[in-house]
């Protein structure tokens, strides 16, 4: 995984549109599902940063009035976070 791609992904999560954020989540999803050892190590090395950005996204989503929360996106987002927190090695390095 390239550092530049990951940075772009974080930027989309921080400041992107919903479509941009969704692209970033899909990208992270691919990395999680990947069997590539390099990707796994990259994810672990950057776990703290990624969790911090995901926390910001969640806070922003839940601080909106319910009518403005994109539910499908929220569910997809939570599903991804759930996958991440089931990875023991990911949480151990945070």
């Amino acid at each position, binding site marked *: 995984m390239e550092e530049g791609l990951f940075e772009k992904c974080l930027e989309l999560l921080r400041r992107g549109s919903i479509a941009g954020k969704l692209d970033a989540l899909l990208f992270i999803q691919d990395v999680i599902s990947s069997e590539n050892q390099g990707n796994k190590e990259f994810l672990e090395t950057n776990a703290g940063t990624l969790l911090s950005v995901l926390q910001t996204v969640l806070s922003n989503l839940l601080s909106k009035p319910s009518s403005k929360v994109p539910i499908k996106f929220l569910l997809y987002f939570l599903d991804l976070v759930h996958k991440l927190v089931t990875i023991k090695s990911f*949480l151990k390095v*945070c």
Partner: protein
Amino acid sequence: MLVQTDQSRFESKDNVSIIKIMNSIILRLLENSDPNRSIIALFALASKYRKSQEDDRVLGLVLKCILKLANALRTLVSAVKPDKILLELHLFLLDYEDDQIHVQPNIPIKAVKIILQQLVNLFGQRILQFYAQSVQAHPSEDKYLKK
């Protein structure tokens, strides 16, 4: 987060899915994270919400997480650092006035007792060494833990 989602904000089907997945995330976090950091974070939250009295449900949820973690400590024993946890409990109790400690029912104090009991079960007499390294070395005197 659980409280924010637990307010029927969304359509009931979505609401159920969101609460379910949030619960599962919290459980995985408690299971897979460093237990010392989790306990420190949870007691910091308990301290904050005990004082604010804005929403008892938040405090209730935090305490449920503490109890869940206390029950899991046996399986996480190799990662448990009793000195750090004892110091956190000491700092938590420092926030209490003498008369508040004995108010009943006192769920935060019960949570402290349960964590302490688990630590004693896990570490036996050695707990006193950890106590000396952390709580006794702290500038503020301990009035409750050693009792």
